[in-house]
């Protein structure tokens, strides 16, 4: 290679390294690739004894390569390889009609409906609590300790109680799951909104006073708009928590459908690949929900003059 060709390739590689897309996504892609590599190594290491014992039980001769290949496509591996999870996930999403009981889309929709309803209920409840707390010192002192206590009880312990009590009241299916989901997600919204509603500058509050604004006007024209950034920050936390809540609520009920049900049956029957595919579905769902909240946040922020 001539020196000029070397210089050219050096220049083009520098141009590549400075390309905006590369600058933006290189760190993420590197991280993902590294994780996948670690995952493969771990899959080999964890599945090795399992596969080797299998060969020995059947008394077939085997080579190291045979065992290595076996760790990549075991039927019930301890840790499934990434490509196994991906193919099972894709099969679950596209391999069946969307509403078939084996379709991951169907199970995701079941969990999604409980998540969205729970998120809605939790957001309303959280905002209502924050409004009460901000407007009354008595309520702040009486409510806040209970709100914090409510989050110290593990939801896995509470969920069966909720289900039993609500079931006795004749509520089954979607609503009990949503209530458990709401129970978890109201908390960050209430705390975030208390902070947001008390965030206005003292000068802005005094201006409202000089105009002798009513408490309602102070709320709608000052406190509420000032709290919007806090609201979205807590909504983003809350939406993932309400998904977790909906999944957890599916566990003790022995639900027949939903991502939680898939996780449960996967772990009952040692279907680790199914278990992981359900996890991927939950992750995709969570990212999608956060993305939607983020998009709404952006459009609201633009209208409120963010720069």
């Amino acid at each position, binding site marked *: 290679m001539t020196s000029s060709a070397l210089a050219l390739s050096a220049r083009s590689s520098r141009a590549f390294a400075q390309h905006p897309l590369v600058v933006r996504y290189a760190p993420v892609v590197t991280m993902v690739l590294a994780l996948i590599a670690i995952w493969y190594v771990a899959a080999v290491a964890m599945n090795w004894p399992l596969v080797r014992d299998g060969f020995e039980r059947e008394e077939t001769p085997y080579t190291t390569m045979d065992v290595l290949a076996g760790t990549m496509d075991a039927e019930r591996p301890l840790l499934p390889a990434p490509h196994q999870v991906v193919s099972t996930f894709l099969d679950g999403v596209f391999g069946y009609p969307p509403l078939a009981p084996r379709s991951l889309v169907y199970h995701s929709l079941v969990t999604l409906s409980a998540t969205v309803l729970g998120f809605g209920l939790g957001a309303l409840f959280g905002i209502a609590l924050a409004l009460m707390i901000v407007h009354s010192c008595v309520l702040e002192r009486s409510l806040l300790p209970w709100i914090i206590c409510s989050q110290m009880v593990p939801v896995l312990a509470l969920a069966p109680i909720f289900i039993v009590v609500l079931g006795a009241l004749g509520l089954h299916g979607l609503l009990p799951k949503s209530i458990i989901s709401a129970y978890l997600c109201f908390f960050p919204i209430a705390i975030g909104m208390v902070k947001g509603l008390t965030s206005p*500058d003292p*000068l*802005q509050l*005094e*201006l*409202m*006073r*000089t*105009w*002798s*604004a009513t408490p309602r*006007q102070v709320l709608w*024209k*000052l406190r509420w*708009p*000032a709290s*919007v950034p806090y609201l979205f920050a807590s909504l983003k936390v809350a939406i993932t928590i309400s998904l977790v809540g909906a999944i957890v609520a599916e566990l003790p009920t022995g639900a027949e459908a939903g991502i939680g049900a898939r996780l449960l049956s996967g772990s009952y029957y040692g279907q680790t690949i199914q278990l992981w595919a359900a996890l991927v579905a939950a992750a995709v769902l969570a990212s999608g929900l956060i993305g939607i909240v983020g998009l709404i946040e952006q459009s609201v922020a633009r209208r*409120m*003059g963010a*720069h």
Partner: protein
Amino acid sequence: MSPTPSSGQATSGVESVSLLDPTSVETAPRRRVVDAQNISLTFETADGRVDALSNVNLEVAEGEFVSFIGPSGCGKTTMLRVIADLQQPTSGTLLVNGMTAEQARLARAYGYVFQAPALFPWRTIEKNLKLPLEIMGYTEFEQQQRVQRYLSMVNLTGFERKFPWQLSGGMQQRVSIARALSFDPALLLMDEPFGALDEIVRDHLNEQLLHLWKSTGKTVLFVTHSIPEAVFLSTRIVVMSPRPGRIIDVIDCDFPVDRSLEIRETPEFMKVAQRVRNGLRAGHSYDE
């Protein structure tokens, strides 16, 4: 604005000057906008009692431009806040527009301008100006008219759709002045409105404010740290001193209504400024 007594003339009373004095050249007494008698305000702090205001007497007639000047802690801002009913005096009587301070606030008798513009960042300039009008229940049509009128008064026509962060500090402060004027209060309370701005912008805004005062006939109470600013703008300068916060001198000045910044070079101006400085010095303001 009709002229007040002669330029730079010392007033006999140390604490209070009334332009409603029967010997005044005015035949028909002008309405008293502020009438404060023996106002005292003490705070209890961890370090003991602080006398923010001690026996302050002040009478302001309609159409006056009164500046309060003095070092930090002399109570000039506190006095303004007491008049605005943002703080309550410990003792004394106070009438604003013939009402108690609270009644005056509820009647929206004054517009208040803080040192910071305190615009609402999520509202456009137009919407910021409309805010007090919305609160006071003006019709949409009236709001729109007033936005146009007061934006042009502070030379900001064309900035209706901008957000506050797109304007400079001086422009933002002009918006906040327009906002204080938008509901047409008879009294304008300004707490170091130009304190955070640079000298050139401040000069410019001083001229604009003088013009505004002249054309609207508002009564203005104006807190400042700057001697030239106080002398340039005021019909009367109230010199205050700390510990306890009190009035130590009241100086009349009646430069021509259509004065320009050049007046600051004249001997008359220097004389009044010197007297303000002497007053500040007598109050031990330069001790620290």
